[in-house]
């Protein structure tokens, strides 16, 4: 892997919040899109803002970036309110919207240099910086290619590069890996981590991909229908649905689904997963289920080759939290 040049402004990890939101409110007509949402993002961290479609994620980003006015609450970014000081705050933000939206008719290099000009970089600064970013994002050979001619993955990379043109302190990423193939998404996650770790860029990330959030984010906040459901580290959120245990089992011989159906283990129906069998139990059932399983396996002449018991993943915790809510139709995006 190519070395990561330190081209971004270093920013030390701090405990002070670089984004502080308190009681944020926004409605569209009669629809309450955000209902007193609060959170704080520390400088230098990756903050995951999670929720199903229509939860209010993009509305929140749009308010924080100055694209939408808020109706209530306080928003402080790097110590200032974007409603009062929009130009000063925007100078410190890099934004990657959910759709790659650079100028289709301009080449990759022209796109970067134009945005650099809007952010006040000098001509020499724009040239140097655009070449740095094209190299950094492995797009050096695409400098003269129009943005419209790039593949979806390359468009995404250039969109992120464009957001970094002016060395922002805070990077907003709205669903950055949506629509990307697995290798491109993985490469992008690596890039986000390196931006954060090596260069100290604070990242505000929204995603549907809970594995991605678990892999990348220091802290997460789950919102649903404009309200906060849970906040904390991924581990803290998993503990909110404590009592939920996932068992993964493999035997030395093949067994059928019909055999499993005969076993009085409790929990969810047993399903095949990656060459093993998987079931979910309430934690209070674990002892009895394991005892039954070992007895029945021995009687059938089976030997365990794999047994793994784990708590809920972030995705399972997320789903459990959502299921606990009453469904309501028609939310903002």
């Amino acid at each position, binding site marked *: 892997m190519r070395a990561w040049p330190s081209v971004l402004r270093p920013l030390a990890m701090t405990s002070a919040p670089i984004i502080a939101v308190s009681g944020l409110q926004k409605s569209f007509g009669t629809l309450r899109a955000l209902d007193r949402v609060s959170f704080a993002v520390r400088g230098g961290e990756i903050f995951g803002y999670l929720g199903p479609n229509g939860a209010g994620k993009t509305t929140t980003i749009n308010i924080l970036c100055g694209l*939408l006015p808020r109706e209530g609450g306080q928003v402080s970014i790097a110590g200032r309110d974007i409603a009062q000081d*929009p*130009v000063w705050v925007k100078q410190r933000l890099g934004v990657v*919207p959910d759709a790659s*939206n*650079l*100028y289709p008719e301009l080449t990759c290099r022209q796109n970067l240099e134009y945005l650099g000009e*809007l952010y006040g970089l000098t001509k020499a600064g724009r040239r140097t910086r655009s070449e740095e970013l094209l190299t950094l994002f492995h797009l050096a050979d695409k400098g003269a290619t129009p943005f419209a001619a790039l593949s979806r993955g390359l468009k995404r990379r250039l969109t992120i590069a464009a957001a970094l043109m002016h060395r922002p302190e805070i990077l907003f990423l709205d669903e950055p890996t949506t629509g990307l193939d697995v290798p491109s998404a993985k490469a992008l996650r690596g890039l986000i981590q390196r931006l954060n770790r090596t260069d100290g860029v604070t990242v505000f990330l929204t995603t549907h991909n809970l594995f991605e959030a678990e892999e990348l984010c220091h802290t997460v906040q789950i919102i649903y229908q404009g309200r906060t459901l849970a906040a904390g580290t991924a581990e803290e959120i998993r503990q909110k649905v404590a009592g939920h245990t996932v068992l993964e089992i493999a035997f030395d011989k093949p067994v059928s689904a019909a055999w499993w159906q005969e076993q009085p283990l409790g929990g969810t129906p047993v399903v095949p997963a990656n060459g093993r069998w998987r079931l979910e139990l309430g934690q209070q059932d674990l002892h009895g289920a394991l005892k039954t399983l070992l007895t029945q396996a021995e009687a059938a002449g089976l030997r365990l080759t794999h047994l793994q018991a784990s708590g809920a993943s972030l995705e399972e915790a997320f789903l459990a939290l959502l299921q606990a809510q009453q469904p309501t139709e028609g939310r903002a995006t």
Partner: protein
Amino acid sequence: MTFWHQALAISRKDIRSYYGKPPLITWGLMFPGVLLLSVYLKDPGTYLQVSPGVLAMTLLFASTSMSAIVITFEKRAGTFQRLLLAPLHLQTIILGKTLSAAAYGLATTLVLTLGLAVLLGLRLTLPGLFALGLILGAVLFALLGLMAAVVVREVFEAMTLMNFFRFPFLFISGVFMPVAHLPAWLQPLAWVSPLTYIVDLLAYGINGRAYFASPWLPLAVSAAFLLLFAWLAAATFRRRVYA
């Protein structure tokens, strides 16, 4: 850097990206060119009387079309959001977009003027006043197009909306018929059309005389329209763009 440099950067990008778009060529150059040629072929002696009006019409269509096309294209492509995310004052965005549209209107009208001068022997009596009329008209009409574009989503919607005022303007503003020849009940409408004053300034520039006794009145009213449209454009942007 700052205000002017950023506005000029926006204009340069628009010029590079949009000047070759077919609707601009059609509405900006071909339509008025063919119209003037047909007037000339019908009666070579009278084309000078209508040329201030047709040149003003060219300015109107080219400037409004350019600003409307740029804004609607960028809103659809999501690239307009780039400007809103950048550390720019709203006035910088409006100025940048206005400059590129006005420059297009000016360039188109100057090409047509040059064509008239070379092919049909058009001469300017007061070139300074002619230039001032062109500049005022270009900026005014660019702002008008900007306001129309910001309230709709598609290019055709912007064109339709603008045609609601562009075509009536043509009939009441002395483009094809002097304002004095309009029915008395229609004449007050001419006074509220900015095109009337631009036609008058161009008529002064070409013929040395026009409907108003002095060029100061059309100059002052055009300047007042410009200030009004700039204020309205800022208000419309603030209300419609950040909604």
